[in-house]
């Protein structure tokens, strides 16, 4: 029920930040994030970052998904 998109944090000004997705830049609130870092990816919903995304877990997920391709002979 929630349109939320991973975007890259490119600027931080206190509770406000600028995030970027494919070259489009927009305002994002950081009130709900512990220790936001420029360069990290955040999940943005209704103009608020609701989570910093974990790159390592993303890669693990990718590996899990890719298992299907090995089993399938890469169809």
């Amino acid at each position, binding site marked *: *029920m*929630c*349109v*939320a998109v*991973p975007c*890259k944090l490119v600027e931080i000004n206190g509770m406000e930040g600028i995030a970027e997705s494919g070259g489009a830049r927009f*305002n994002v*609130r950081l*009130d*709900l*994030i*512990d220790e936001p870092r420029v360069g990290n*990816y955040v*999940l943005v*919903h*209704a*103009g*608020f970052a*609701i*989570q910093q*995304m*974990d*790159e390592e*877990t*993303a*890669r*693990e*997920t*990718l590996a*899990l*998904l*890719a298992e*299907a*391709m090995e*089993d*399938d002979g*890469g*169809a």
Partner: protein
Amino acid sequence: MEALEQIRNPKLARALLAEVRALADKLGRPQTFMEVCGTHSHVIARCGLREALGGAVRLVSGPGCPVCVTSVGEIDAAIALARTPNTIVCTFGDMMRVPGSESSLAAERAAGAQVRVIYSPMEAVELARRKRGARVALIAVGFETTAPAIACAARAALEGGVNNFAIMCSHKLIPPALDALLASGEVALDGLICPGHVSTVIGSRAYEELSRRHGVPCVVAGFEPADVLLALRLLLRQRLEGRAEVENAYGRAVKPEGNVRAQEAMAEVFEPCDAQWRGLGTIPQSGLRLREKYAELCALRQAGIEVKPGREHPACHCGEVLRGVLRPAECPVFGKACTPERPLGPCMVSSEGACAAEYKYGRLRAKAAEKVGASDG
């Protein structure tokens, strides 16, 4: 992030699809899973997952569309706010065309009411700062994903002395609704695809009690087609192995404990209350209301408006669709009296409502069947 891009690779989804179909065939009978979240319904319809899965897996849409489960009475109250003099109503786009007893926010705007579509609740606070002479009322609809953002807007308004900003609080909570749904036993479910972004806030642990009490496998899923298929793989494996537990397939965005800061923001501004869900009736402690400290922000109290029981269209079966009892195509008015142009109920209006998704994306089967001269059930 490279990994995020890779997860979108269509080859992955196709390979997973083949695997999921193979897994499903191993079970003796077709499996029924409910995707709770409206955004999942949208993704599933958009990529044609129901068709692609074939008969071994049946996906049922659940009540996770906040706009769909908002009662007619609440929509009428929002409309009453829009008709109040000197009031600017701010709303997410989703709510604009949902029919109340006789009107909608979009119709009110066409008739001259001040209704603005916003993307972020902060835009409503900014508007209130700029337009001091008017009351700016934010219609706060949504589940635990959205409530923390609204809470921050409420805090910002109170701290900033923006005393012409108000909130009509209509938030609802997912776990109590799931509990009620599972307890009713109306639809036999083999598992739940749990909402990804609600879980970002409340954590994957939030479903453990439910899963245990009702013996239902639960997997938290992300929103790429591959993510949903991964969740199906995990659900089917649980079924094959006779397990009923909570698994998190959206680890990159969901932690077991969720987002504690967001939970704290919600808890500071809101407290649970009983809430009326369209199609599910009143569910105890399943809604949010403003705490005493923030009660002065209550738009309905300020405008002297009460939520009264509204009048659903007599031919509308949205309640049964929301409970997963009826599939959109099984609703007697689907595509006939009820279409996106002339919706009788919210399921056809909300872009993620099961009926809107089915209408928009699913009609190909019917057309193809027409062409062949067969009739499709």
